């Protein structure tokens, strides 16, 4: 998963899944479509990504296609570097 993936996973577990077994959250767990991240959580995630990785995320990149699992989010972050 790499450091980027680890950081993202740690943020999601801390903010949105307190008390969850870390192994339950994988690179491919569908976050938005399975109700783990709702619309407000998605906004908070985007804010976190922008601050943590010093990138700018465009409005059209805040959708299911780009953010539905950790693998996709890592790709998005990497694409900005």
């Amino acid at each position, binding site marked *: 998963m790499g450091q980027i993936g680890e950081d993202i996973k740690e943020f999601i577990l801390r903010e949105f899944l307190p008390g*969850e077994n870390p192994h339950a959250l994988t690179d491919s767990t569908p976050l938005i479509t399975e109700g*783990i991240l*709702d*619309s*407000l959580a998605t*906004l908070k995630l985007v*804010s976190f990504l922008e601050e943590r990785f010093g990138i700018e995320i465009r*409005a059209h990149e805040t959708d299911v296609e780009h953010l539905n699992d950790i693998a996709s989010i890592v790709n998005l972050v990497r694409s900005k570097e």
Partner: protein
Amino acid sequence: MSNVTRLHYLLDNSARSLPEHVAVVEPKRATINYSDLAILSDCVRDRLVHLGVHPGDRVGIYLRKSIDAVAAIFGALKAGAAYVPVDPFAPPARNAYVLKDCSVRTVVIERCFAERLQIEINQLGGTIQNPLLLDDVGGGRFLREALTREQEKNPAPVTQTTLSSPDDLAYILYTSGSTGKPKGVMLSHNNAMSFVNWCSEAFEPNQHDRFSSHAPFHFDLSILDIYVSIKHGATLVLIGEELGKEPLHLASLISQEQISIWYSTPSILSLLAQYGKLEQYRYPCLRIIHFAGEVFPLKHLRALKALLPGRRYFNLYGPTETNVCTYFELPAVIPDEQSKPFPIGKSCSHVETKVVNEDGQLVPEGEKGELCVTGAGVTQGYWNSPERTARSFLEDASGRRWYRTGDIVAVDNDGNYVIVGRRDRMVKKRGYRIELGEIETALYRHPAVKEVAAIALADEENGVRIKAFLSCREDTHPSIIELKSFCSQNLPRYMVPDFFAIREALPKTSTDKIDYQTLKEIA
């Protein structure tokens, strides 16, 4: 204009006086003028009548927000039916329950939803007859195509718009039910028109106004958006559900579409203030900001007012059962000492309100009690639920029926109502009405769950969030991710608990019921 007593006459009247004026906009996609919208709705009327819709029937509307949806709604009204809008993004099983509960005669539905709906309704022992199937929605084009297709197969004669009575039902809106099943609030033409006419008096809209349509059509905020706009020959700008949650896009839209009257929950406005980068654009047309549905945390309200100064801000209050029944206009400048949320204000002129104790008696001046409402804006009751209806009303000595809102209020020094609590376990989250019992019922359906208790947590920063405590039957329990996923298949998204805590057993009171008080303290 105030003599109009049926919602669909509002459209026909505006079509006569302002035929070329733009009635509805799908931003960056399509527009439709009043004349074309009226004609399209007449065609829907004719098709529905031909499909067997009689005055008094219910017609389901299972469409994403679009010009097609607006025309379908007016077509149903013109056929003398009540429209029953369902949330296209809710679990199909829930929508099936709603449509079966009120025995819709037929549904206007997008093909992509139809198959699943039929399966779910069949499982409930029902069926959908003769649905009007649209391949998609957008611009009214797909509705027109569907109507043309049907017309070629089976021509429907031109009919007349039904002459209905003002007390006839215009729509049924389903809200969260504490026992797990949603309940249908019946609303008549008179209920809606009395509210719409009050809006005309209070806000003085005109044909140059451009109304946002942020709320989905199954929420009663849409009644102001659609019918006040159309009554005045103004323009309604549709904001789809997905876009509606994207603050960056919303800020741009409000500016580009020259919205003059905005109406939404405080949550969306908070998001706009925090994440919308409002300073990027100008909003010279924006003159009124309405908000309703929940408390507006002062922190975000101040931020919004700083970014959008000089506009009129209104706090509108009222459950679905009454639509808006009290209102409060914010002062131009929020005083620095203001530390509590603003009041819900005073009664609208088309209804009357009073405050009662548990026995239904008026409380002494200055004391708190339950807010009750009577008058033209108030529902006749819940569809096919006489006991629930009876429980929700009080009859006074003169035989007038008062709806019990369940909100406990006090009166401030200026005579404004202030909400101090609830009588029951209903909460508002992001403006959505949630019965905590409905969430618990859904979780009890999970085979591993033994006991559940859902509580609401509130803070200024995050608003209301739901935490579900549960105990399981076995030692191995489902992951939080599994539980969230399970909930999202059985409940609308906004009802999925934010947090889960799994315990060996839940605390009990001395009478062996779940101890909610303790849970609230440890949460």
